[in-house]
């Protein structure tokens, strides 16, 4: 795969940056040939991943750092990597189960949304070291028609 365009950004783990990050990734993704609905889905996915880093990874401590790297590959594939250096996840498989949450007040659907709106979801985490969420989606026309 050939990287056509790339941006990486680092920001403070503040709640107001969730909506900021979501808009920036959406604006970058808009370089791809995709619809408004696609963009809304990308926003949702980024919100879920970034809020997980802030809320779970950093227990809402605003002085930490979240990193997002976005690549456009081969004109039709979007890759988004969201990374934190927080508490990490003990059991990734369990964390990804629908409705599983370590916080009883939450719905536990973040990973489920990420999986359902993207073609690929890969989570790598080390307790005490942090979490990396890699999301990928292809926007080729053939792919789009398969969903139609």
């Amino acid at each position, binding site marked *: 795969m050939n990287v056509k365009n790339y941006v990486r950004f680092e920001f403070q783990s503040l709640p107001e940056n969730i*909506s*900021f990050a979501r*808009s*920036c990734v959406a604006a970058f993704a808009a370089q791809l040939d995709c619809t408004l609905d696609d*963009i*809304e889905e990308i926003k949702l996915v980024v*919100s879920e991943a970034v809020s997980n880093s802030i809320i779970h990874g950093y227990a809402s401590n605003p002085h930490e750092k979240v990193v997002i790297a976005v690549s456009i590959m081969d004109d039709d594939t979007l890759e988004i990597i969201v990374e934190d250096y927080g508490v990490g996840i003990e059991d990734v498989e369990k964390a990804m189960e629908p409705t599983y949450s370590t916080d009883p007040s939450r*719905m536990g*659907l973040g990973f489920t*949304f990420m999986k359902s709106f993207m073609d690929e979801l890969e989570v790598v985490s080390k307790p005490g070291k942090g979490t990396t969420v890699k999301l990928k989606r292809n926007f080729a026309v053939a792919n789009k028609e398969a969903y139609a």
Partner: protein
Amino acid sequence: IGEIRRYLRDNNAVRVSRSLRDIAYKALQVREKLIGDNASEPTIAQIAEELQIPREEIVFALDAIQEPVSLFEPIYN
């Protein structure tokens, strides 16, 4: 699935897609209205509050309807 839908609705996560043009147009309308009401230039926060749209989305929307790059400088050529 019902639960997921409810979650999405409650969190206003996936809303009806609105075009950037639409958001930008509304933002400019609200700005005029607020100037009329208060006789002063509103802040972006006030416009965002009135429209119930995050500030950054208003900024991106207005940018999208603008001329590309700089008003003053030809970038290539």
